[in-house]
């Protein structure tokens, strides 16, 4: 074999390659883009799913926003508290300082197999979307169809169907992405803030008698909850109570009042209270015994005769702060 042919080819190509490599090496230094090193570090600890649940196009954009302090360290709903802490450590801030509020999917129906019945035998495609198209086989035309369309779209394994034929949402795993909400043909899954702790778990707008016939746990529109609410946070709309999250103090009076258990307190621990639990309300000597606080107290923790100083049962008190607001003499304080 004649090696002469390599004599020109290899050096010339090598020279050419070396020339361009050198040029690029020079320009890579010359046009170097300075990036905040924290961005790369944050990207590494993020889940990397690029799901967009944080509101940014991907994990890289989220990391950039965190570095620019446009968003909070715990803005990644998938990562949860662990990732938030790692991100906060990289940013050199305290994770607890940022907001913990997040969106969680809530099922607004309690009509499972035990509470409702089938008025017809549906044998079509086993999908909620298909079943919702044909005449109503379930006793409640607003209730969960129970084929689990929502469970199948959940990308985070945060949902499963229980034995009663209702989807259960794992509030820890739920990222609030909203896929199940848009998938449900009957719109009985809603995104709610984890600071909203009272949820009306019924969407039936029918009159009380019809609801009672269809489901054991449906809202019959009796308005008891609205009447019992100490802060008037509940308004009846279309035979259903609507809770105003701003006004609601989470005392649970409505939950106790509901005859069909259609209102439930949410299972998660983050209950909004005005002051930390360690502080207790105390009635001071300024009390003139007007009884306003006792009337307002949703849990009857205040007792006393008119004209005399009232007593507050700190065990029963839920720290809702309603009494502090109504007291004309500012005689109730946190201690």
């Amino acid at each position: 074999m004649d090696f002469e042919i390599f004599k020109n080819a290899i050096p010339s190509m090598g020279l050419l390659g070396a020339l361009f490599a050198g040029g690029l090496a020079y320009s890579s230094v010359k046009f170097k883009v300075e990036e905040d090193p924290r961005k790369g570090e944050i990207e590494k600890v993020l889940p990397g799913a690029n799901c967009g649940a944080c509101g940014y196009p991907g994990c890289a954009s989220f990391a950039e926003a965190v570095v620019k302090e446009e968003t909070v360290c715990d803005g990644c709903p998938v990562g949860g508290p662990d990732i938030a802490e790692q991100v906060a450590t990289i940013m050199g801030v305290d994770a607890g300082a940022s907001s913990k509020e997040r969106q969680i999917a809530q099922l607004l129906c309690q009509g499972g197999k035990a509470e409702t019945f089938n008025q017809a035998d549906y044998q079509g495609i086993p999908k909620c979307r298909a079943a919702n198209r044909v005449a109503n086989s379930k006793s409640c035309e607003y209730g969960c169809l129970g084929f689990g369309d929502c469970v199948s779209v959940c990308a985070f394994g945060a949902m499963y169907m229980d034995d009663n034929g209702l989807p259960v949402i794992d509030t820890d795993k739920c990222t609030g992405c909203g896929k199940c909400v848009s998938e449900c043909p009957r719109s009985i899954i809603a995104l709610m803030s984890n600071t909203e702790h009272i949820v009306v778990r019924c969407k039936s707008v029918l009159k009380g008698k019809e609801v009672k016939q269809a489901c054991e746990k449906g809202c019959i529109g009796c308005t008891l909850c609205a009447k019992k609410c100490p802060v008037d946070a509940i308004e009846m709309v279309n035979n259903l109570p609507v809770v105003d999250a701003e006004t609601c103090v989470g005392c649970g009076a409505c939950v106790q009042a509901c005859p069909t258990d259609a209102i439930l307190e949410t299972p998660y621990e983050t209950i909004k209270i005005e002051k930390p639990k360690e502080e207790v309300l105390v009635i001071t000597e300024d009390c003139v015994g007007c009884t306003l606080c006792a009337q307002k107290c949703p849990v009857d923790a205040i007792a006393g005769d008119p004209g005399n100083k009232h007593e507050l049962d700190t065990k029963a008190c839920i720290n809702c702060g309603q009494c502090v607001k109504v007291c004309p003499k500012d005689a109730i304080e946190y201690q």
Partner: protein
Amino acid sequence: MGDLGELFGSLVMIFMTAAITNNFILSQFLGICPFLGVSKEVPTAFSMGLATTFVMTTSAVCVWAVNSLILVPLGLGYLKYVAFILVIASFVQLTEMVIKKVSPPLYKALGIFLPLITTNCAILGLALMIPMNNYNFIESTIFGLGAGAGFTLAIVLMAGMRERLEFADVPAALKGAPITLLIAGLMAMAFMGFSGL
């Protein structure tokens, strides 16, 4: 003076041929990928056109130099693909660095289509046509510039039409890629009218 006039005339001819009569996209159907991919908005399309023009012109100059100074004298014609791709890839890399530094939003808007200029057949086609047509240094430069201008013209025209199409009542089956391809075909037919020039 006559020679200079003749030279200028031939250069204008090369430019016009590359830009319009033999438009790389609409007559030779080279570089369709960015033509369809980055033609959603006029400003982005125009920037893509400029980036491609830059790579085309610089590559044309380098390709001419590599071809006539290295490949032909050493009888290494069979290495032209490797050598040309090396030239093109280097300039695309350089362009990418400059754009990333100078305009991060543009870098994001061009996305994958910027590095894809490397494998854009319009540019390799241009590189291969230079030795084929025996262009000299100035002719090669003008050829590259003309090809880039033609590419920019086509992609900006396309982007302008697609911007208006956003608000047009397109039948459902033709929405998106199908109508874009139809437009490309119609534009190509319109450009055939220039072949008589």
